[in-house]
Every structure is written in C-alpha cells, then in structure tokens.
C-alpha cells in the first residue's frame, strides 16, 4: 500500500460504491457508531480455523466427546464455547481410511463461521462451487489431495441450514502428542475436506 500522501491512488469504482452506501446509510442513521468495527472484530481476531482445530483435537483425544460431536455437532461444539451466526446447526462428518468427506456450497458460500471463520476466496469462487459436485476426485487431486480409487468420496452441498465440519483422520505417529500439540496439526483445509493430514 502506498505511503505517498502527495499522490494517493485514486479510489477504485468498488471503493467509491462501498463508501457511497456506507456514507448515505450512516447519514440516515442506519449504521450505528462503531458498527463496522464491531461486526468484523471477532472474525479478524478470535474466530477462525483455530476454533475448529480445538474441536478436532478434543475429538481425537476424548472418545466420548467424539461420539457426542458426531451425534449432535452443535451441542458438542458449544461445549468448547463456539457458536453463533452460521453455526446454529452444525453437522460433523468423519474422515476414515475408507471414507473422505468434503464440503461445498454450490448456491452461495455457506460455511461454518464459528469454527472456521470467514471462507477463503477459492471456496466462494465459481471453479470450486461448480466442480466439487461434478468431479470431486479429480478436483481433490488437482488441489493436492489425491485419493486412492477405493476411498469413497462423500460431497456435502450445504444448501440448507446445516453447516458442515469435516473431522479429519488423526495422523499416524501422533500417539504421544498432547491435545494442545494436536491442535497445531489441524489445518483449515483438512476441516473443509480438501486436504488430509
């Protein structure tokens, strides 16, 4: 970003449009003071894949928690303090040696905000949304997640009110790690289902 205040880059058309709507709605009293910061602050600081990673690590280390998580995802995730918009009805699907789950929203970009934060650009763009239901095995391989032919793929198109979290399989050789150490192994992509750990 330019620091040259004498020749600032003129605002782009999209910046001008956003500013126009923001200013007009604010002048008319529809945007409370501090609203823009308040709406976004949590997603820029506290809410993101680190939340989902805690859920996954707990499930890997506590079989009873894992059973609750797979039965009632919303309640089990709430046990760790996570919930809110786009997380009111959570379903958790488990990856195993034989089954691989992957999540998409073909109609918009539905995504479990409380456990993964706001979605990455590729999840919202047309290539992923169009192709994951049509050619999941080819697309997963293309995205760096090749699967053997005998691994069943289950694609979940989250087109209604349920939001999906993939429970990745625990990597081998991690038996000696603590729950906190396991948290650090869990990636966002593994919880969407476009990567295995």
């Amino acid at each position, binding site marked *: 970003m330019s620091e040259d205040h004498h020749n600032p880059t003129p605002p782009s058309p999209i910046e001008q449009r956003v500013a126009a709507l923001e200013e007009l709605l604010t002048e008319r009293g529809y945007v409370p003071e501090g609203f823009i910061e308040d709406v976004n602050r949590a997603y820029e600081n506290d809410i993101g894949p680190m939340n989902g990673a805690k859920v996954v690590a707990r499930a890997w280390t506590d079989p009873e928690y894992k059973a609750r998580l797979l039965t009632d995802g919303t309640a089990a995730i709430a046990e760790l303090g996570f919930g809110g918009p786009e997380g009111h009805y959570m379903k958790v699907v488990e990856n195993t040696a034989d089954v691989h789950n992957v999540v998409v929203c073909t109609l918009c970009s539905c995504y479990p905000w409380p456990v993964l934060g706001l979605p990455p650009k590729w999840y919202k763009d047309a*290539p992923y949304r169009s192709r994951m239901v049509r050619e999941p095995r080819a697309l997963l391989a293309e995205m760096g997640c090749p699967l053997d032919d005998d691994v069943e793929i*289950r694609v979940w198109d989250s087109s209604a009110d349920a939001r999906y979290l993939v429970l990745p399989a625990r990597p081998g050789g991690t038996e000696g790690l603590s729950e906190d150490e396991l948290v650090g192994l869990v990636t966002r992509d593994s919880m969407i289902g476009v990567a295995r750990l």
Partner: protein
Amino acid sequence: MHDLGGRQGFGPVVVEQDEPVFHADWERVARAVTFAAVANVDNPSTSKFRHAIERMDPAHYLSSSYYEHWLTAAATLAVEAGLVTPEALEARAGGPFPVSQPVLVDDVAVPAQRSARFGVGDRVRVRNMHPGGHTRCPGYVRDKVGVVTSLEGEWNIPDVEAHSHARVPDAVYSVRFSTEELWGDGEPGASVNVDLWDCYLEPA
C-alpha cells in the same frame, strides 16, 4: 447464475496462500454495511438477502467477487426499501452503481404446514421445478433420484420466506445422490449429499 453446481468451463481453483481475512478495507466495510442495510428493510431474512444476490445481472455476478455481491445486494435492498435512491448512490459514488434486477414474483403460494413424508432409506425424486423467485433447490438435482440418509429437523421454506411475511416450517432431509445418477458419467465411488426441503421432493 448463482446456481453453479456442475457448470463447466470455470477452470482451475486458484488458491491464495496466506490469504488475509479481508483483502482490502472496502471488503470489511461492505460486509458490515450489508448487515446494517438488511436489518433495516421490511421483512428481513437471509432468504431475501440471498435472492437479492441471485437477481444480479449474470455477467456482473460472474465477474465480481463475494463482497461485491454483498454490496450489490445491500444497495438493492436499501433502494427497494426506500432507504436510499439510486440517484443518490450514483452521485455519491461519482459513477455507475449497478443494482440487481427487480423481483419477478409478487406472490408465492404459501403451503400449509405438514409433517415429514419421508424417512431414512426412502427413495425420493426431486421435483422438476423452475420457480421464478428464490429457491434453495439446486438445479443439478432436479428430476434426480436419491436416498434419504437423515432427517435434519424442520426449517422455514426459503422459497416462501424470501417473498412473503409467512414462515412455513417444513422437514429437511439430507438426500444422497450417486454421481452416476447426477451426471451419467460421474466418477465412481463418489456421492453428493444435498439438504432438501420436503416440498422439493416426491416419492420415487
């Protein structure tokens, strides 16, 4: 144009490494202003907001990013609710401010609430439907046969919620479709589960 499942020709998925939550300040402002706008329209709902995105000019939809979709929907709903005028938006923006196309349905049938008709294991066919308004029934499953794998409770029918003050809860099922059923030449060993309202389905 938003209904993208199975559409071809979009090319590779482009992954941005170390992507920030927002790429520019306008994205975070657009996100918040959208919530502010939607909260101040008549009969607000997620369905109504989604439909405002779905009404975007198709070429604009495909050539703009997620938060531009949000901004366009927010401006559209704000204009339609009388919170701002198109002229004021364009004057303030110093240029064109495209908004979405008008709502095409002025009245939707409000079905009576009914109990779930299907159970786990039932074969169902998705109705061959093409509503002019909002729906959450993806095009690629219409007229296809799948199997109910779970019941997901009752949720308001979005097709009604987007266009009416009525709220009609209806059973939602997770329905599994084989890729062969969906695409004819689908990849072996794969299935797609879609969450579908009871009113989208008929016995198969």
